[in-house]
């Protein structure tokens, strides 16, 4: 029933929820049927949405062609590696000078375990995955003001914050100060839970000792023999902890949201491996360096007019019965396309967010060697916002690449407004306030500011609930022979799973129309 009423992706999601489809291939479940004889689909954009659609539609027997602006498959699924050249809007060209095997993922970089469609395509396409470390309890939380600017270990702030809250709540319970309707037994259980989860001592206090150090770490770790006696660490005093503001990273629940819960994955060798694998699977179907300039539908099909960037000024045409357009709305709203007002207004209603990522190559992996940080992220209140350490090749000699900035909003605009070299310098300067090894060990860097990425001019489509309420369904509904897909046509803004599920949903509906037309 669900399969009939909703799209294939919806059916798959429903099946996942019921536990039927977990861990199985998605694609077998997609009710596209067999293509009507001679039916064709033109796909605009060879990102994950476009290539998912091409892959599935070809399997169902449709004649498929794909137009892509870039000279590579993947779109935002992209890794920069040594030898790559990247020219941003405004003309600045950077050459990536990373050592072999090292990379920056300018766009997506992690895959939650519940993004089952994307994971299924990785499996199907032979893209090897490895764990991505989201939370590292030994990474830092840093503020220029707090603790004299000295970074604090994540585990200390996390443990001390929970300890403080648990102690205060236990006190309130013991003083009968809670006006919650709790029985005596409830209160006993609550106290027990607070002692356990807050690392409180027998008297419900969060104090220096082995109990709290078992969570926040010791001043001297336990070891063996006569020298092995542990020295417990001293929790941070309550006022200092609160004033530091470092709990904001915990309070924002960023690390603990569903999307970031363990286990997450990354492709071995860079996120771009997925786009590259799709591109190989679709060999011959994708026309690269094709800049779409106009999209026109009539009673029988859809024509895309495009410029061959190898021969600037030329206008070529591609035509099919149906069109799946995955061009980002930031670009699409500038392309003439004869769709109705509801879809046109929806296309123009979604601004694109700024974001900047900066990859820094260092001469050695000092974060591992000096600071025992293996993967994960340090957060700071500086413009760079965060520093993320590589989640692979631990303990290796030689160089390593750190994500030296991943930042949003105003700081991202500020960094974007600089030249690439300035951005890299700024990331090194700010990072050095957390890792003093930076200046000595810095080798080279590369900066991607999404507002200046030529194929999209922004990072992802920014929806609000109000804008979504008015425009989202109109964006997703098929207009004549044209359907849209991409993360912008999903409730998973900026996520690859959003792009893939939107494509599966859209082509399921397109196929139904194709069948209805063929049967008529």
């Amino acid at each position, binding site marked *: 029933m669900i399969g009939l009423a909703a799209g294939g992706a919806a059916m798959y999601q429903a099946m996942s929820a019921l536990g039927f489809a977990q861990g199985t291939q998605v694609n077998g479940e997609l009710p596209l049927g067999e293509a009507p004889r001679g039916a064709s689909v033109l796909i605009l954009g060879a990102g994950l949405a476009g290539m998912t659609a091409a892959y599935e539609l070809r399997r169902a027997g449709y004649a498929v062609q794909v137009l892509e602006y870039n000279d590579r498959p993947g779109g935002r699924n992209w890794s920069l590696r040594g030898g790559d050249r990247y020219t941003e809007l405004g003309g600045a060209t950077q050459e990536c000078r990373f050592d072999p095997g090292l990379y920056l993922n300018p766009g997506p970089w992690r895959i939650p375990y519940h993004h089952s469609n994307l994971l299924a395509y990785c499996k199907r396409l032979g893209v090897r995955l490895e764990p991505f470390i989201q939370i590292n309890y030994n990474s830092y939380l840093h503020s220029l003001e707090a603790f004299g600017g000295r970074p604090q270990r994540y585990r200390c702030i996390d443990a001390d914050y929970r300890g403080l809250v648990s102690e205060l709540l236990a006190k309130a319970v013991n003083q009968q100060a809670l006006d919650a309707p709790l029985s005596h037994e409830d209160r006993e259980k609550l106290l027990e839970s607070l002692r356990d989860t807050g690392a409180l001592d027998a008297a419900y206090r969060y104090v220096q000792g082995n109990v709290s150090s078992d969570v926040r770490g010791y001043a001297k770790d336990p070891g063996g023999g006569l020298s092995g006696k542990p020295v417990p660490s001293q929790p941070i005093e309550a006022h200092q902890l609160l004033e530091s503001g470092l709990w904001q990273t915990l309070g*924002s629940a960023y690390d603990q949201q569903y999307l970031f819960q363990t286990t997450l994955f990354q492709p071995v060798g860079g996120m771009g491996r997925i786009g590259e694998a799709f591109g190989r699977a679709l060999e011959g179907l994708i026309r690269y360096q094709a800049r779409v300039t106009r999209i026109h539908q009539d009673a029988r099909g859809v024509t895309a007019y495009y410029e061959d960037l190898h021969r600037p000024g030329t206008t070529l045409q591609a035509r099919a019965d149906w069109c799946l357009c995955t061009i980002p709305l930031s*670009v699409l709203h500038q392309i003439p396309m004869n769709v109705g007002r509801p879809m046109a207004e929806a296309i*123009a209603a979604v601004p694109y967010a700024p974001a900047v990522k900066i990859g820094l190559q260092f001469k050695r992996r000092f974060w591992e060697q000096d600071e025992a940080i293996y993967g994960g992220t340090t957060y700071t209140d500086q413009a760079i916002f965060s520093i993320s350490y590589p989640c692979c090749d631990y303990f290796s000699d030689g160089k390593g690449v750190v994500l030296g900035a991943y930042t949003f909003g105003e700081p991202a605009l500020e960094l974007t407004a600089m030249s690439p070299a300035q951005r890299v310098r700024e990331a090194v300067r700010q990072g050095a306030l957390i890792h003093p090894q930076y200046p000595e060990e810095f080798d080279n860097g590369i900066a991607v500011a999404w507002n200046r990425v030529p194929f999209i001019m922004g990072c992802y489509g920014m929806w609000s*609930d109000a804008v979504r309420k008015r425009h989202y369904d109109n964006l997703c509904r098929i207009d004549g022979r044209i359907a849209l897909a991409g993360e912008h046509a999903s409730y998973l803004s900026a996520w690859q799973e959003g792009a893939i599920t939107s494509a599966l949903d859209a082509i399921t509906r397109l196929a139904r129309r194709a069948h209805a037309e063929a049967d008529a």
Partner: protein
Amino acid sequence: MKARLLSLLTLTLTLAVVLTAWSQSAAQSTGTAAQRDEIPDDAQLAHASGGVIYRHICQACHMADAEGAVGAGHIPALAADARLASAQYMAAIVVNGRGDMPAFGPRPDYTGLQAMNHVTLSDAQIAAVINFVRSHFGNHYRDRITPAEVKAVQLRTASNADDEDLSLMAGK
């Protein structure tokens, strides 16, 4: 959420301080202070010149020479732009956004990551940067827009900001 917003405020505030220090040191070391205004701290930011705001915010997309850029799509040039004849028109676009260009007026409907990504400029900042652009980059408009007039654009939008008007706010 509150924590996230607080943290953002701190972030923005600190950023201003950090960049001030940085641009000062950069200016000292290279002697090119004129190329890059210092970013003022939070208190000063409210009175930052239009040039400072342009170079640190608008320039991210519209480029240092206000010539915009062309890729798969294009970022509009603001240099020698006849459409800037109306400061009100420009204010409406800066406040409300247009197409992929985000709004720089208040957008309380943004939450979570969107709130983090949204940049709000004050009426005074918007007026200052409009006056700057309209008198630089080959634009020679003599009239100036005031913060109060920007506010009026804002209020006009807000008073109709039921969902009927959202399309207008974001429309082409």
